[in-house]
């Protein structure tokens, strides 16, 4: 009898918990799909936007490729911040996205957690060092920063020559994780990750041979919050947001 009523209490508790809404406020929320390299800048920009308008912008961070896949399959985002120009353009052609606009231009760097890695004359020499056994690169097929790094490596003839050193990360954030935990000697990362607290502990080379990564965004047509999402899109190029982007090394 006692046991049974104990069970009953648990059931009651579970059902009550189930009924409590996760958020009780009537605050408007936007859901953005954001390319992994833009994490830090986006977090600051969305906080600034929330302070100003009261609209909260929640972000899902992943590689551009997987976010595109989710959106193409109907994921309920309001906005897509890609790390390339191609995928927003594709969504626009396919009818899921509005006209794309450029929100940031990023640079690819070669970063290492070890300061002595940057003693070499340039990044090409640093990579050729025999002690540098593994170097992380975001999957060039899916991650635009990986594509840019590969372009620089192909241009300098190192892509094939040092083939056995490349370790492929799923996105730019994982490339940085491998390098910062010293799982690899270095990693091709976004300039923005160098600006993070963890990034400042290491050192980096700029990759002049890698093209600038033009990052485009688009509002998704299915959004039920059109006014707010348009306000946020405009805010992305406001002086306030530009200052935050500049702080994280975007041009």
């Amino acid at each position, binding site marked *: 009898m006692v046991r049974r009523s104990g069970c009953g209490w648990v059931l009651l508790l579970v059902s009550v918990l189930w009924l409590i809404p996760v958020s009780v406020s009537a605050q408007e929320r936007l859901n953005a799909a954001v390319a992994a390299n833009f994490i830090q800048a986006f977090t600051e920009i969305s906080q600034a936007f929330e302070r100003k308008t009261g609209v909260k912008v929640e972000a899902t961070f992943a590689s551009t490729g997987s976010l595109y896949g989710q959106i193409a399959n109907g994921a309920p985002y309001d906005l897509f911040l890609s790390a390339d120009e191609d995928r927003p353009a594709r969504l626009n052609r396919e009818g899921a996205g509005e006209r794309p606009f450029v929100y940031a231009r990023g640079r690819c760097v070669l970063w290492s957690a070890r300061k002595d890695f940057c003693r070499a004359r340039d990044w090409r020499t640093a990579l050729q060092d025999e002690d540098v056994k593994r170097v*992380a690169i975001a*999957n060039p097929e*899916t991650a635009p920063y990986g594509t840019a790094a590969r372009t620089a490596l192909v241009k300098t003839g190192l892509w094939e020559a040092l083939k056995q050193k490349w370790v492929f990360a799923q996105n730019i954030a994982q490339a940085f994780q491998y390098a910062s935990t010293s799982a690899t000697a270095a990693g091709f990362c976004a300039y923005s990750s160098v600006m993070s607290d963890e990034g400042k502990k290491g050192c980096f080379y700029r990759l002049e041979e890698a093209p600038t990564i033009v990052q485009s965004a688009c509002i998704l047509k299915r959004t039920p919050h059109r006014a707010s999402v348009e306000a946020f899109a405009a805010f992305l190029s406001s002086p306030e947001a530009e200052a935050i982007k500049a702080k994280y090394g975007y041009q």
Partner: protein
Amino acid sequence: MDWQPFYVTLKLAVATTGLLIVLAAPLAYFLAYARFPGKSMIEALVNLPLALPPTVIGFYLVVVMGPKGAAGRVWEALTGGSLLFTFLGIVIASTLYSLPFAVQPLKAAFQRIDRRLMESAYILGLSRKATFLRVIIPNSVSGIAAAAILVFLHCMGAFGVLLMVGGSLPGETKVASIAIYEAVEAMKYREAGLMSLCFIPISYAFLLLVNRLNRGA
């Protein structure tokens, strides 16, 4: 279509199954028969991979097997090579990840053995080790087969841990599940679809084969 990822998946499943059965048998024997305070704590530890997200296991393995981690340093001192991002590295990862899938059926099989059989063996002068190898193991073949099936299939389907520790090196750590994921991300849906389609008959064929082996045993 590229068959190499399937080859790596099968190689990984075979290597992990072999390694894990050998490693898990003594551990399961110990858990089945030993009595000591705190045994339940060891048992919970063995079962921990069941309750942990693959990402947690993967995250720690990257740290521990890396050049600065304990296991990575020992390995480098012994062999001069690195452990992370190698085939051996993913074998270790999936061995750890599949440990409870081997230990649980083995332990259950060992516990089912008639105690009188073991007592007779001791009376007839067999040592503990000889009893284990010549009485217990031959009498738990079906349990061993069950453990092997579970581990093998679990390895075929492994994804999260390998995504964290693999580094997706073609022919080395790029298994079929990762190759499919990457093909989807690269918008090569045809290739992803083909590979996914291949997975079903391959897995099914192995289940049939394993069932037949099990019946024969």
